């Protein structure tokens, strides 16, 4: 599918999806509570068959957090970026680790560094930092006067 076809096909999944202009990949903003259904459809429907999640990350926009998923279909060779806005104070989103197994570790990393809680994740613990670490270092307002020497 090319970009336009993909856009119309994804719009058909959920009416609340908006699209961003420009960018290398087609970028869709989806509501967080519908995330799991849309992702399931993107993975399972033969028209999409997005079997490969090549990136999962989060961006702190100071007012809110945005989850960013990069998906690709190995069969159809099309790719899409899915974004989902999260509340900064209480970030929660359904886990995708049972759809793409790679998400299990990537979500743990995001939990570790951004504090996003993934509901129904089988093993949500800190991955890179020690268990008693305070705060979420990749957030923009993270301060650590002891360890961090600012330049």
């Amino acid at each position: 599918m090319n970009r336009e076809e993909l856009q119309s096909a994804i719009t058909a999944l959920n009416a609340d999806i908006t699209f961003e202009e420009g960018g290398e990949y087609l970028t869709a903003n989806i509501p967080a509570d519908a995330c799991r259904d849309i992702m399931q459809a993107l993975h399972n429907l033969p028209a999409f068959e997005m079997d490969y999640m090549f990136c999962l990350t989060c961006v702190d926009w100071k007012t809110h957090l945005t989850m960013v998923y990069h998906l690709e279909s190995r069969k159809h060779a099309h790719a899409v970026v899915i974004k989902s806005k999260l509340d900064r104070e209480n970030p929660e989103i359904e886990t995708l680790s049972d759809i793409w197994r790679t998400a299990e570790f990537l979500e743990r990393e995001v939990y570790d560094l951004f504090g996003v809680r993934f509901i129904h994740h089988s093993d949500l613990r800190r991955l890179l930092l020690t268990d008693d670490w305070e705060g979420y270092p990749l957030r923009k307002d993270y301060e650590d006067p002891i360890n961090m020497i600012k330049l």
Partner: protein
Amino acid sequence: MDVKDNQQHAFPGDVHPTASGGILVSKLDDVINWARSNSLWPLVFGTSCCAIEMMSTASAKYDWSRFGFEVARATPRQADVIIIAGTIVNKMAPVLKRLYDQMADPKYVIAMGACATSGGPFFYNTYSVVKGADHVIPVDVYVAGCPPRPEALLHALITLQAKIKAGDKREKIVIEKFVDSN
């Protein structure tokens, strides 16, 4: 308190010169130091890039086996020198301390590369890097470079040998500094 007085009442733990019978003991010490300096078995310990250069030092081109360093032990109990090859982060620091504690005396430490010396390229704006391995364990020899060349590591090992042969223990040097500064 003047300097002379300070030297007479030396720092607690300082080595007192023995009255007599020193020749045999000091000769034995020399022999032991010779053995120790020529048989430095490194611990297999590498955290990042420097570990690759450490492997290069072991490889045929640089060949640290010439000096008898090639018996790299995987268990800290049998190692003499720990070459900190790479960055030490906060999560690793307790492990490094533990490894050091597990080693049998006498034990020596080489901080290989900028990261182990000072945090190197990861000094600023990082939240997890220990700014120098000497915050965790005492270091005998520092090697500069990111990563240091194998020759630099060999030089560090030879410097450590010279240090052991001279009989200078870390504690002694610290004490001398203390006395001098007074």
